[in-house]
C-alpha cells in the first residue's frame, strides 16, 4: 500500500458510495412511491402527491379484488410462466449448443433464421398467428399461449446460450468423451450445469416477458377464465379512469408477485449468475 493514496482512497470511498447510493435511490424511489401511494385515498393523492399516507387504507385493494377474476388471472399468468420458462431454457440450450459446437448442413441459414427473430416487431405476427391458430383450432385453450411464448423468447435465449457456450473450453467435452460418456450425457450432464450463469439471465428475461405479455394474451384467448394479469390490469384501469390511487393499486397488484419472487430469489439469481465460473 502506498501512503500517498490514503486520502484518495478515502475520497474514492466516499465518492463511490455516494454515487452508487444515489443511483440505487433513484432506481428504488419510483417503486417505493408507487407502493405507498396505493395506500392513499384519491383525494389525499391529488392534494399532495409525495407525502406518506396519513391514514393508510387498503380500500383500493379491496376494490381491486372485487373487479374481475384477479385470482384466475394470477393463476393463468403463473401457469403460463411455469410451463414456458423451463422449456425455453431447454430448447435454447440445445440449439445454442449445436450452434456453438457442431457443424451441420444449413447451420448458417438456421442461425440467421433464429437470430433474426430478435428483430421481429411482435405486432407484425399478431394477425397472421391468429389466422393460423384459428385454422388449426388452437384458439382459446389453457395452453394456447405456451407455444408463442416459447417461440418468441427463443431467439434472445439462443443468442445468449450460443455466446456463452463459445467461451467454454472444448477440453471439458473431450475429457467427457474420453471417459466414454454419450453425446446426450455430455450435453445435458456435463455442459448444461456449466451454463448455470447464463441460465439465470435467460430465466429472468423469459419470466418477465411471459408474465408481462399483453397483445397475444388479448387476442388468442377470449374466455374470461384464461385472462392473464396484464389483461386484468386494463380492465381494472378501464373502470378506474379518474381514480389515480386505484390505478396505482392495480399496478402494484400486477407487479407484486414478481417483485416478491425476485426479492426471494435475488441471492440465488446472483450466485447463479456468478457460480460455476468458467475462466475464459
Amino acid at each position: 500500500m502506498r501512503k500517498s493514496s490514503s486520502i484518495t482512497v478515502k475520497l474514492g470511498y466516499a465518492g463511490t458510495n455516494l454515487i452508487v447510493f444515489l443511483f440505487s435511490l433513484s432506481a428504488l424511489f419510483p417503486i417505493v412511491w408507487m407502493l405507498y401511494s396505493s395506500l392513499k385515498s384519491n383525494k389525499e393523492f391529488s392534494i399532495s402527491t409525495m407525502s406518506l399516507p396519513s391514514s393508510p387504507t387498503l380500500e383500493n385493494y379491496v376494490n381491486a379484488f372485487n373487479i374481475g377474476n384477479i385470482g384466475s388471472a394470477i393463476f393463468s399468468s403463473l401457469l403460463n410462466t411455469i410451463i414456458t420458462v423451463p422449456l425455453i431454457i431447454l430448447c435454447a440450450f440445445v440449439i445454442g449448443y449445436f450452434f456453438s459446437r457442431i457443424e451441420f448442413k444449413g447451420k448458417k441459414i438456421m442461425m440467421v433464421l433464429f437470430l433474426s427473430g430478435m428483430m421481429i416487431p411482435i405486432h407484425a405476427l399478431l394477425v397472421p398467428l391468429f389466422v393460423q391458430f384459428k385454422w388449426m383450432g388452437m384458439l382459446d385453450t389453457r395452453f394456447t399461449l405456451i407455444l408463442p411464448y416459447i417461440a418468441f423468447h427463443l431467439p434472445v435465449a439462443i443468442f445468449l446460450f450460443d455466446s456463452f457456450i463459445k467461451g467454454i473450453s472444448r477440453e471439458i467435452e473431450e475429457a467427457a468423451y474420453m471417459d466414454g460418456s454419450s453425446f446426450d450425457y455430455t450435453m445435458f450432464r456435463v455442459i448444461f450445469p456449466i451454463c448455470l450463469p447464463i441460465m439465470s439471465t435467460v430465466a429472468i428475461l423469459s419470466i418477465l416477458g411471459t408474465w408481462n405479455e399483453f397483445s397475444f394474451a388479448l387476442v388468442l384467448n377470449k374466455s374470461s377464465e384464461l385472462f392473464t394479469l396484464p389483461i386484468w390490469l386494463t380492465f381494472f384501469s378501464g373502470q378506474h379512469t379518474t381514480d389515480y390511487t386505484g390505478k396505482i393499486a392495480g399496478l402494484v397488484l400486477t407487479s407484486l408477485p414478481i417483485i416478491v419472487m425476485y426479492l426471494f430469489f435475488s441471492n440465488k439469481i446472483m450466485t447463479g449468475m456468478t457460480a460455476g465460473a468458467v475462466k475464459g
Partner: protein
Amino acid sequence: MSNSRLFKLRAGPAFRYLVPIFSMYAFTVLLPLLISIYYSVFNEGGTKFIGLQNYILLAKDNDFWFSVKNNIILTIFSVLGQVGFAFLIASFFMTKLLKLEGLHRIAIFLPVVLAPVVTGYLWSLIYNYRMGVLNWLLNLFNADPVLWLDNPNYVLYSVSVPLIWQYIGLYFIIFLAGMQNISKEVLEASEIDGATWFKKTAYVIFPLLKNVMSVALILCITGTLKVFDHIYVMTGGGPGRSSMVMAQYAYNNAFTMSRLSYGSTISIGMLILCAIIVLIMSRWIGGESEK
C-alpha cells in the same frame, strides 16, 4: 483439427433435437412472418396483388423516416444510458470500497422486473404536469413546472429516461457476473502494479469483458429498436408525431387506421433496417476485437 472431426462425427443426434424445435419455431414465428410479407404485397383487404408498391410508398414516407430517426436517437441514449451506466456502476462494485453491496444490487435490479406497461404508467404519473413528482421537485426550488410529455422539443428525452431507468439493472447484473468471472490473480496483479480505478477498469476489466459487452450491445440495440409498450402507454407517439417510433407507427397503421397491409410493410421494413444496423454493429465490434 481432431476436435472438429470428433464433433462432426457425433452430429447424428442433430435431427432428433433440431428438427422438432426448429419446426415449432418456424410454425410460430417464421410462418406468420411469411404471411405478414404476403399481406404487404397485397392491397388493403387482400384482393389485389400490388407487388412492391407498398415498399416504394414506405421509402417515400416522411413519417416513417421520422420515426426511424427517433428510434435511432433512443437507441443511442439507451446504449449510453443502459449499457454505459451499467458498466460504470458495475465497475464500482469491483473497487471493494462499496458498503451494502447486496442491497444496492437488489435496488438497482428491481425496476427490471416491472412490466413495461407498469413502468410507462408509473412514469407518466411522475411526469404529470399538475401532480407529478418531478414538477413537485421543481416547485420546491421555486422553478416553473415543465410540460415533460407535451413539449415536442423534449418529449423524446422524457420518454427515454424510463427506458434507461428500467433496463440499467439488467446490464448491470450481466456485467457484474462477467466481472466476477475475471480471475482474481489478474485483478490483484493490476492492483499491485498500482493501477487506479480508471486504469484498472479501462485497461484490465474492459478488454476482458469484450464478449459480454458485445452481447449487451446487441441486446440493447435490438431491444430499443423495437420498443413499443413504454411509448404506447406514455404518449402513443405524440404529441403529433414527436415521440413516434417504428413499432408504434406500424401498430397505428395496422390497428388504428385499419391498414393491415401497410402496417405489415412497415414491420418488414423495420426488420430489414434492424438487421442492417445490427449487422453493421457486429461487424464493427468484431473488427475491433480482431485488432
